[in-house]
């Protein structure tokens, strides 16, 4: 058992109100400080997950996202700013997160997840957050996370519909159980308000916090379906596919 890192006085002051939370306390806070999280894309969803995890005092964030800030990012990608248009997204994100919390270690990778880098990037983290729009990236992350036994928080939205689940390799369905093939009708650009991606992102950040600190109940084995247009929330049970091309009949090689 690795000893948990200690908190300094400045950190205790910063996290004081959340350490009052039932089940969290200083031990939960030290667990957060010990944890590394990889976030695949830091747009409307992933950027907001990163912001809340940085605020909560996660130890280390690995942020993967290619490309530069565009005007159409700014309705939802809260780590991007107008003065950063045309410059690298990951640098804007790192700057904003460090302004919020200098105690968080930030590693940036100006690449999207792919079959080439997924093993290495997932290997840098204890937990991975999938906030990528393209299924090819999500499948690459899912396979690497399953093989390495790393939990994945899967978050997604379309218009006012949102989905969230936590996948635990070997225990719950993986992404390929639910989406066996690359959906031909999915387009990278889709209707979205920043408050929709932000809502689901805040819930995704809570999944990470509960998973790490070990209190409450996560969505593992279930999926939250939210219709934010009508404010209907449902939680459905999700089944593993015994013939899944990634996890069917396989055990994760958890380290």
């Amino acid at each position: 058992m690795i000893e948990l890192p200690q908190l300094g006085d400045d950190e205790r002051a910063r996290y004081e109100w959340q350490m009052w939370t039932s089940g969290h306390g200083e031990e939960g806070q030290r667990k957060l400080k010990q944890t590394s999280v990889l976030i695949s894309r830091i747009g409307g969803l992933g950027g907001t997950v990163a912001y809340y995890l940085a605020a909560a005092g996660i130890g280390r964030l690995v942020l993967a996202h290619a490309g530069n800030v565009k005007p159409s990012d700014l309705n939802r990608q809260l780590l991007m700013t107008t003065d950063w248009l045309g410059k690298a997204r990951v640098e804007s994100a790192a700057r904003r997160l460090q302004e919020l919390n200098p105690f968080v270690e930030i590693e940036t990778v100006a690449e999207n997840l792919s079959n080439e880098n997924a093993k290495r990037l997932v290997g840098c983290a204890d937990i991975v957050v999938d906030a990528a729009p393209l299924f090819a990236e999500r499948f690459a992350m899912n396979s690497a996370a399953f093989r390495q036994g790393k939990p994945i928080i899967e978050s997604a939205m379309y218009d006012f519909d949102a989905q969230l689940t936590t996948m635990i390799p070997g225990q719950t369905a993986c992404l390929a159980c639910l989406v066996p093939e690359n959906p031909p009708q999915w387009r990278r650009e889709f209707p979205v308000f920043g408050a929709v991606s932000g809502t689901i992102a805040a819930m995704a950040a809570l999944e990470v916090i509960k998973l790490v600190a070990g209190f409450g109940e996560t969505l593992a084995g279930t999926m939250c379906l939210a219709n934010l247009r009508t404010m209907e929330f449902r939680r459905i049970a999700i089944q593993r596919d015994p013939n899944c091309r990634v996890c069917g009949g396989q055990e994760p090689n958890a380290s």
Partner: protein
Amino acid sequence: MKICVQWLAQLRDAAGKAEETVEVPDDLTLADLLDRLACDAEGALGELLDGGSAGAGRRFLLVVNDATVGPGAAATHILQEGDCVALLPPISGG
């Protein structure tokens, strides 16, 4: 018997409604229902449901009441009067 069909995300847009009640024969399987829905659908919804149980059934998450049914199990999953079947297209982050 009566089954409630719920359309989610892009399917809701294509169907122009969130749900409908369909009258089907007793002992219908989930795969049969998908084939019937694909057969009856027109326009944008018809395109999305193309292939019925062998097509749309593999592309969408199938939810009966409060649990998913894997694409491999749709052919043996017998529906009951009053079941609520939701079809959920894969959506993604961003």
